[in-house]
């Protein structure tokens, strides 16, 4: 009994264990009454603890009691199938208990009363049992048969005691009493043998176990409210799927409603599969390809090929093994590298580096290929250094160190910095050394030229020539000594050097010869007239200048200055030359030379004149030469007309104002060619005619319009306009008598703040005037009034994709039209918002789920036959918005 009780206590719920309990109860030994009392007291104690437990115990107690009755009922078979009836009872008790659960006594009472109330038959049973027991004992004694026999008898008797059959019309006694109600379990009993019983039973048990008191339903209004809320949330979430297609529709510049023209073929394979040969050629090809024989042969061949492909098992294994080996080797190598990389010891790394260096050195010396590679690497490094200046203490670290001062650093840092610098120097120095061989020649050449150019006298030239000769010889000698150590000692370098040397040798020899020949020439010419030397030297200079146009300009300039300074002398020389021109013929050479020089130097743009001069000089018939000398200051020009005819010189120099030299010259030209009366301009001037007084005409005009001083008027007008837009600040005035009585005013003058204000206002005005478009146009007034009507033709703010005003303005200047665009793009540009083919029914927009992982075009989203085009280009107003309340398609 106690055991059953304990088991009950551990189990929380009743019905699940109910069957077991009944079994336990069957087996359970009967406790002595003393023990039972103990248990009772325990129960009461438990009941103190909590209601739950109390309930539990109550039922226990009850069941415990019941167990007795059951046992009793055991004897009377009638109760056997209706075990559960007994179990149902506690529910009622529970209710009773609930009503009086404050009191322990009450519980006891209740239980007692229960037991009392629990039908009078119990007491009767007890009595009966007693009598039956006695009777059985008596029978046993008499017959010597076991009590069981009589027991059965008794059972039989019990059954018999029921005189009427049990049915719903004849309810059993306890049902009539009201506490033995028909339960689901009762109803289930007849189904026990049926198929779905166990399942049903389980379900019911579950239901019962979970039985919780049902709450009263909430009011309908509230319920609906909640329903609506949930529905709203749900649809809200659901409706977001429309956002994208609708947005796309709205932003689309054009929506097409057209019949969906399905091209049908989606892939090349699909197209190819539908291919049927049509032309003769195709048919022939087809017959060949699909020829049964050919196919057969191909198949057979394939089979044979497969046979050939067979690989022996050993081969495969070998291959696999080798692969595995390689892999493991690689892995090991990797691991090793990793380990080495992880080593932090500096000395180790240093040693490693040294080793590597040594190895590479040896390799370089032995293997030319490796050496080349190394050189390439070095070159690359150098180039990098040049590019990045990495070792020039440009790094943040170095900068910081420098900022703090080198003195503040410890030994290591200082060393590191200096080492970096060294490295940089090293890298860059090497670069020089590499280039030296090629660049030195050039520089020396340049030097020579530089020295040669400035002085043009023959002595200098000869000197230079000799110098050059000496130099080249020296170079040849020194070149032999060069390069016995360092990189130059390398074999490939040596080879290269040799080649170079040979070339240089040849060159130098040529140069020496050249020098010698020219020296000789010089000596010859020195004997001739000095003036001619001058010309020759001059020619030489300019010839050189033409050969090397990149040569410094100042050199030629200096030459010019020389010429300018002794231009007088030159003039004379020219005269001399003119006189004995017939004999010499040197003039023809000289004059074009002069012209060249002038053309190069002059910036007055009067080339045509000079060319004409050239022409005149070149053909000897007219015998007229024009000499134009430009003086160092280009402010004025000398036009010399020299008519050399029959040895009589006629000089007439016309000096013209420098204002419009070109025009004047042109006029001079015109004089020669045409002598019409009607010149467009009033200037008619020629050497022979009397001079036209230019200013007199202006005077005349001035005199004619003397009455109206238009300019002044205009100025006044402009000032008025300006003042209208920004009025001139008033002069600082003081109220008369203000502060005068103290004489302070008189002493100090107007207060400084007043003056300051006035000054600032004045400055402001000037600034704003300066900003005007017509600020430096004296004769123009540009209205700066802003017209509101015009403002609407401008964009108010920068449209979205543009970030700069200039870009936008430029884009607006791009013309749009059939003249500037191909037909297709123009059609796209001015496509209407909605394109609908007549007769096409616009269906509402439909939504199709698209699997994002599936790579399909988005077209499906938009519905079956709907195309949306987004044009970004040129649409000024940005994307046109199409309203789609009922979306289209």
């Amino acid at each position, binding site marked *: 009994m106690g055991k059953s009780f304990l088991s009950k206590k551990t189990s929380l719920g009743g019905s699940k264990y109910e069957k077991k309990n009944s079994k336990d109860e069957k087996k359970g030994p009967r406790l002595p009454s003393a023990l039972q009392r103990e248990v009772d007291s325990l129960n009461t104690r438990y009941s103190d603890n909590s209601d739950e437990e109390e309930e539990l115990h109550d039922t226990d107690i009850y069941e415990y009691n019941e167990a007795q009755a059951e046992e009793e009922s055991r004897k009377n078979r009638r109760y056997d199938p209706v075990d559960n009836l007994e179990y149902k009872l506690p529910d009622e008790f529970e209710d009773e208990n609930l009503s009086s659960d404050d009191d322990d006594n009450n519980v006891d009472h209740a239980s007692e009363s229960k037991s009392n109330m629990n039908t009078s038959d119990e007491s009767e049973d007890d009595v009966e049992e007693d009598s039956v027991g006695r009777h059985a004992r008596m029978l046993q004694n008499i017959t010597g048969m076991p009590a069981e026999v009589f027991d059965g008898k008794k059972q039989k008797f019990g059954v018999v005691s029921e005189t009427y059959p049990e049915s719903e019309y004849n309810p059993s006694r306890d049902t009539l009493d009201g506490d033995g109600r028909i339960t689901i379990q009762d109803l289930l009993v007849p189904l026990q043998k049926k198929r779905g019983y166990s399942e049903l039973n389980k379900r019911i048990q579950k239901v019962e176990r979970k039985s919780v008191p049902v709450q009263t339903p909430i009011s309908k209004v509230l319920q609906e409210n909640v329903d609506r809320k949930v529905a709203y949330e749900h649809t809200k979430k659901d409706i977001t799927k429309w956002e994208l297609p609708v947005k796309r529709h709205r932003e689309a510049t054009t929506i097409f409603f057209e019949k969906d023209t399905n091209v049908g073929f989606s892939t090349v394979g699909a197209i190819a599969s539908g291919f049927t040969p049509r032309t003769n050629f195709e048919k022939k090809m087809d017959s060949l390809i699909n020829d049964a024989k050919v196919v057969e042969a191909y198949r057979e061949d394939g089979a044979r090929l497969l046979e050939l492909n067979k690989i022996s098992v050993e081969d495969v294994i070998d291959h696999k093994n080798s692969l595995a080996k390689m892999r493991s080797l690689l892995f090991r190598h990797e691991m090793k590298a990793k380990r080495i990389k992880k080593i932090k010891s500096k000395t180790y790394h240093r040693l490693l580096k040294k080793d590597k260096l040594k190895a590479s050195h040896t390799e370089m010396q032995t293997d030319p290929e490796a050496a080349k590679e190394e050189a390439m690497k070095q070159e690359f490094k150098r180039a990098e250094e040049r590019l990045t200046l990495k070792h020039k203490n*440009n790094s943040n670290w170095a900068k910081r160190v420098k900022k703090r001062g080198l003195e503040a650093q410890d030994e290591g840092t200082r060393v590191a910095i200096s080492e970096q610098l060294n490295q940089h120097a090293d890298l860059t120095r090497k670069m020089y050394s590499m280039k030296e061989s090629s660049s030195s020649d050039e520089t020396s050449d340049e030097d020579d030229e530089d020295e040669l150019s400035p002085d043009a006298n023959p002595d200098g030239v000869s000197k230079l020539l000799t110098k050059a000769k000496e130099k080249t010889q020296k170079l040849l000698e020194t070149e032999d000594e060069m390069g016995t150590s360092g990189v130059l000692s390398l074999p490939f370098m040596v080879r290269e050097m040799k080649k170079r040397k040979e070339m240089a040798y040849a060159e130098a020899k040529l140069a020496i010869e050249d020098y010698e020949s020219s020296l000789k020439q010089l000596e010859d010419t020195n004997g001739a007239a000095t003036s001619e030397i001058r010309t020759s030297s001059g020619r030489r200079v300019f010839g050189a200048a033409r050969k090397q146009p990149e040569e410094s300009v100042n050199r030629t300039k200096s030459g010019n200055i020389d010429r300018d300074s002794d231009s007088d002398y030159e003039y004379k020389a020219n005269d001399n030359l003119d006189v004995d021109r017939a004999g010499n013929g040197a003039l023809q050479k000289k004059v074009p030379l002069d012209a060249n020089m002038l053309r190069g130097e002059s910036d007055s743009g009067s080339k045509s004149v000079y060319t004409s001069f050239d022409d005149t000089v070149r053909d000897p018939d007219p015998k007229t030469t024009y000499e134009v000398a430009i003086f160092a200051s280009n402010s004025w020009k000398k036009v010399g007309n020299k008519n050399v005819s029959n040895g009589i010189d006629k000089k007439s120099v016309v000096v013209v104002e420098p204002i419009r030299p070109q025009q004047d010259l042109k006029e001079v030209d015109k004089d020669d060619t045409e002598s019409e009366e009607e010149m*467009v301009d009033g200037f008619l001037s020629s050497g022979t005619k009397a001079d036209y007084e230019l200013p007199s005409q202006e005077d005349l005009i001035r005199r004619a319009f003397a009455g109206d001083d238009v*300019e002044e008027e205009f100025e006044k007008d402009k000032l008025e306009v300006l003042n209208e837009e920004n009025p001139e600040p008033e002069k600082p005035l003081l109220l008369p008598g203000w502060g005068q009585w103290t004489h302070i005013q008189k002493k100090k003058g107007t207060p400084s703040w007043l003056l300051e204000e006035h000054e600032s206002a004045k400055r402001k005005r000037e600034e704003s005037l300066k900003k005007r478009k017509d600020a430096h146009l004296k004769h123009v007034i540009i*209205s700066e009034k802003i*017209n509101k009507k015009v403002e*609407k033709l401008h*964009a108010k703010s920068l449209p979205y994709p543009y970030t700069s005003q200039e870009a936008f303005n430029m884009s*607006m*200047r791009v013309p749009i039209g059939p003249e500037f665009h191909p037909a297709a793009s123009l059609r796209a540009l001015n496509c209407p918002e909605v394109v609908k083919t007549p007769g096409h029914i616009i269906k509402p927009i439909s939504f199709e789920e698209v699997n994002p992982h599936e790579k399909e075009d988005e077209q499906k989203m938009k519905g079956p036959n709907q195309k949306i085009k987004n044009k970004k280009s040129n649409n000024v107003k940005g994307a046109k918005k199409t309203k789609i309340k009922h979306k289209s398609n």
Partner: protein
Amino acid sequence: MVVAGRKGHVALIDMMNMDLIKEFQVREAVRDVVFLHNELFFAAAQKKYPYIYNRDGTELHCLKEHGAVLKLQFLRNHFLLASINKFGQLHYQDVTMGGMVANYRTGLGRCDVMQVNPFNAVLGLGHSCGKVTMWRPTNATPLIKMLCHHGPVSAMAFHPGGHLMATAGMERKIKVWDIRKFEVLHTYSGHAKTLQFSQKGLLAIGSGSRVQIWKDTAGNQDYSRYMSHSMVKGYQVGKVNFQPYEDVLALGHSQGISAILVPGSGEPNFDTWVANPFETPKQRREKEIHSLLDKLPPETIMLDPTQIGTLRPPRAKEQLTKQEREAAMEAAIESAKQGPSKKKTKGRSKPTRMQKKKQDGIMKAKRPFLDQQLNDERQLLNKKPKLNEEVQLPLSLQRFARKEAT
């Protein structure tokens, strides 16, 4: 071609086949005639008013508002008829709707030189004080006023490209201007009663009985004589005009009209979308409708029409003067002082408290003004260095600027 004589004779000639279409007498002085949007209509400035006639010589309208008009011009893209009358009043009339678009007084006296710039439809007027003014219908004041000559302006003409203007003054000067920079390019001496540019940029100058054609041979706008033609002595050339798409110059002189050939003056290739000499009536009607649909509003007339559609130029801020600002501040302070004060209990509306609160209110009212003042000053300070930076390099070249070496 429409011709009109000073004595009131108006004639319409088809220049393709030199047929006289219509000729009639208006019996009063006709000062100017101009075709409207097509050859079916023309306006004639007569003694008192300008009139509009059609091809048959039927008078359609009398534009009384214009007064005694001296010169007429038609802006064909805007459908505006512009006129300047004896009193220097400039009228713009819309010929489609008939409304008077603008009516401005030039204030510079009688003016009988008027030309429209074909590029931007800005109207140029030459005045007797040597000024040239340029007008548009939306501005009551001239866009440009420039002093071109010391004497009265006798003639002016615009290059079809819109960048050149030629003016002639009574003081024996002919000037060629760059009207983008408003600077004189070249000055020549000579008289001109009338000036006209051809489609290819030849400049016809008529003075006295002489007509000269100048050409810009070098391409640097330096015009020089190309041709010259002299009429019989005593004929006075009144007007020269080039025939579009032909190498013909028509001269109107005191004895009638004559035409001379000027090689290379007209555009050899005509664009039938722009002007079709061989237009059928149907095409003409079509074109009329199209041009009416494409009519531009008068606001679109501006010096630089490429500016249309660009971003609005930054408007000069309406800066209040100091006095105004101070007045505004005073007003705010006044209102803060006058503001109603709540009555509070528990000693919270003691006089001292109230005073303090009032002071706070005043400070609060002042605050925005002071802040703005501070801001302005700061901006001024900030602006100065910025200006220097801008001066350094234009935006497009800044990317080439050498980065500061670090």
